[in-house]
């Protein structure tokens, strides 16, 4: 039975449980719902929950555990020479899966009977040609071990699917009987249902924690794997980045870190003054009507996907900077450069700085302004000498968060900064960043045992730590130095 069918049957059983449990509860109160502890529907819901919860939990667990068990059993039976290291194991298992999938397709297409798919061997049949007939292309000839493993794989999977159906249906039916049998007028159905709902709410909230654990866990294991293959010292302190998929690569992250920080600095030089002055003007000078028009327009920038800014960098800003500034000044002839990427990231961070600063400036109490005006200060003097100092912690926090966003920005640097890892002072040189290299090392064909691929996880971990650190630092500054008014 397919998973979809199982779901449908379980849902039907849940519906049945709802109706039965509700009726049973009403019957126990002789049809008068006033004698029930809870409203009638709660008895129904309780019945449904007893069907759904165990059955679905069982189904999910089975779906996760079955492939693991099957894989470990199969790889345990394969001869050792196919399993010399983890890379070879992965390759062999991929072969086994592909052949098994091909046999499935062949049986479904009618090119092969179920019996012969289990009994054939490589001496009498050309498995590769047979599978090619039904549209499954294999890279090489199928060895007898792989075929045997694939046949075993299919048998185990089929057995697993049957057992899964039996288990889920058994759980659902048992749940139905138990849930319905509990429905009588003294049962506190509402409390039971609400307990389950509360549990679901807690589970939903915990996903945030699980995500963090997932991020850290996934990157930590792979990063650890990377450092067993590549010295930690070289990664953090080597000045060359030249990955080579044949091995013997230099994977020093300093050039990437330099590129990242350089781009971030350029971005901040663009977005901090522009964003801050925008916020000051909007908060202190602009009329209500201007504000009502300009603020949403600035925020349009925040709503535009970063890939669009990437194209703006690649197609418009890059060539313009090259032709008008870099080439006449003899600073280089590259369209993609730190300047291009930094400028565009700066633009896309303007609304971030301006709306955060706007909120912070508006939070400064009016009495401070009035006091300053009363002493005869002009508006700009009030802003510079009273409002900005009062708002400073918040603004510094906003700048730090903007920096963290610039460091983590990907699409703009992928299209605008270039791919050459170098340590150069010239802002019109093409340089590369950590995010560019993460994308570069992880797209296309990847081999998860090579340090050249795994380095992306180490870079990702570094990126995660840097951005998280900046954000925590920003929050700390805001909390510690925030002025408390009233």
């Amino acid at each position, binding site marked *: 039975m397919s998973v979809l069918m199982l779901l449908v049957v379980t849902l039907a059983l849940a519906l049945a449980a709802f109706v039965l449990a509700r009726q049973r509860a009403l019957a126990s109160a002789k049809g008068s719902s006033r004698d029930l502890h809870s409203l009638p529907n709660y008895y129904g819901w309780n019945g449904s929950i007893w069907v759904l919860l165990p059955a679905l939990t069982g189904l999910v667990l089975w779906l996760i555990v079955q492939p693991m068990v099957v894989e470990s059993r199969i790889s345990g039976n394969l001869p050792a020479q196919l399993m010399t290291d983890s890379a070879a194991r992965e390759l062999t298992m991929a072969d086994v899966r592909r052949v098994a999938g091909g046999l499935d397709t062949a049986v479904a297409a009618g090119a092969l009977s179920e019996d012969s798919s289990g009994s054939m061997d490589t001496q009498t049949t050309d498995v590769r040609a047979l599978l090619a007939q039904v549209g499954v292309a294999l890279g090489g000839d199928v060895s007898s071990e792989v075929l045997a493993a694939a046949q075993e794989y299919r048998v185990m999977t089929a057995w697993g699917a049957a057992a899964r159906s039996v288990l889920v249906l058994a759980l659902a039916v048992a749940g139905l009987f138990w849930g319905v049998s509990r429905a009588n007028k003294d049962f506190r159905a509402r409390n039971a249902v609400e307990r389950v709902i509360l549990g679901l709410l807690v589970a939903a909230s915990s996903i945030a924690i699980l995500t963090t654990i997932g991020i850290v866990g996934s990157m930590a294991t792979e990063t650890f794997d990377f450092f067993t293959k590549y010295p930690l010292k070289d990664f953090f302190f080597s000045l060359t980045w030249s990955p080579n998929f044949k091995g013997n690569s230099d994977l020093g992250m300093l050039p990437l870190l330099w590129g990242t920080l350089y781009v971030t600095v350029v971005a901040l030089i663009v977005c901090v003054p522009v964003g801050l002055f925008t916020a000051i003007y909007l908060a202190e000078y602009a009329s209500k009507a201007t504000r009502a028009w300009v603020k949403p327009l600035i925020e349009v920038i925040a709503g535009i996907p970063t*890939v669009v800014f990437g194209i703006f960098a690649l*197609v418009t800003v890059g060539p313009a900077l090259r032709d008008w500034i870099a080439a006449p000044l003899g600073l280089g002839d590259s369209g993609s450069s730190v300047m291009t990427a930094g400028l565009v990231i700066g633009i896309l961070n303007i609304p971030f700085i301006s709306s955060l600063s706007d909120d912070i400036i508006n939070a400064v109490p009016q009495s401070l302004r009035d006091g300053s005006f009363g002493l005869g200060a002009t508006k700009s003097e009030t802003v510079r000498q009273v409002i900005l100092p009062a708002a400073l912690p918040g603004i510094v926090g906003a700048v730090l968060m903007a920096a963290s966003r610039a460091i983590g*920005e990907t699409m703009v640097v992928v299209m605008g900064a270039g791919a050459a890892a170098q340590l150069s002072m010239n802002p019109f040189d093409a340089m590369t960043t950590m995010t560019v290299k993460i994308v570069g090392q992880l797209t296309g064909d990847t081999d998860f045992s090579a340090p050249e691929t795994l380095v992306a996880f180490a870079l990702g971990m570094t990126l995660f730590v840097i951005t998280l650190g900046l954000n925590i630092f920003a929050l700390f500054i805001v909390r510690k130095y925030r002025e408390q008014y009233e």
Partner: protein
Amino acid sequence: MTAAKSADPVPSIYTTSPAMQRRNAAETRFRLYGLVAIALSLSLLAVMLVTIFRDGTSSFFQARLSYTVELTEKVLDPKGNRNRDEMTKVTTVGYGKVLSAGLMATLEARNIDLGGLKPKEVAELISKDAAGGLRAKVLADPALVGSTIEVSVFAAGRVDGFLKGRVTMESAKLDSNISPEQLELADRMRTAGILSSGWNWDFFTNPDASDQRPEAAGLGVALIGSLYLMILVALMCVPVGVAASIYLEEFAPKNTLTDAIEVNVSNLAAVPSIVYGILGLSIFINVFGLPQSSSLVGALVISLMTLPTIIIATRAAIRAVPPSIRDAALGVGASKMQTVFHHVLPLAMPGILTGTILGLAAGLGQSAPLLLIGMVAFVDNHPAPPLDGFLDPATALPVQIYTWVTRSDPAFVERSNGAIIVLLAFLVVMNLLAILARRKFERRW
């Protein structure tokens, strides 16, 4: 008091002292900085949008050649028995020959001067995509063989660029794909009405095409992929996000678990998107074994990214419901859970809806994490309808924009800008919906 005394050097309030003049000048300058900053950001936005629309609108139009083709039996069905299985042996090369012969015949019948071009060079004006389309059409209806039909096929990408002004006689001299003579012929064909540019629905339905055939590339797979992503993200993210917000706002006791959740929600909102891509690659693909490039994995990743946004918006909406509502419900005997689900949640719904739409709009524009989970791959087939289609390889609008712009042919840059227009149109619609929802349901307490 004499009049002489009033000539004291006390300055009049009607004249400004030099110090005051300086301060006023500083004031004007400061104000000007603000105006310049706003003008700068708005003009940069305008420049960006104008370039996109200038370069992109033409991608909705495409040059087509309309002429008659004789479907020669000798080439397409050598055995002459209209047996589809045998006809499949004829590749697109055969159909290409038929198409170019048809074009030559039409040009001859209309007395159009070839300008000394060889038939092979004339055939280069037809898109390499055309033969495949004709083949599919004939195989679907073998009875067509032998008849003469009207075809409307894409012109080659350079010819299309010529009609749009992107390819000129000068650039053609340097271009190995097209010659000025071919463009002159194209010009004569346009006058004769064989070649014309028209609205191109195929741009919205065709899958991506290879480097050699920019004229046939379309957004079909990307649109379906983005649609699947949005459906799945809405299905996964909204219930979980709303449930989490309800718990945090209404039920969560002050304890370590609650603190941990709060800290995590705010930190996850600041994690770079690429890190979510790494998470998707190593957990969903490598550990759980979900298929690479599938919309399901993309949706899982984007859901995790969107979750903090939706939680933050939903919590604000729930908080905005006044406590008197809760007190009244509790006062007439509702349980805490009933209070929340029967009263607070319906009243917070407009705010939740607005936040959700905005969150989904942000998710629709995400591309970096999708690159890592393989949605950047070249996908030639439209994904199947759900549910199986959720596991099929697909791509998404922003990723398609990125892949096109990285190809060398400038025709792809035009299409990339066209795709941006489509993407922006969706975002505008979603944001308008959010604004309308807010206007319609907004309630002041």
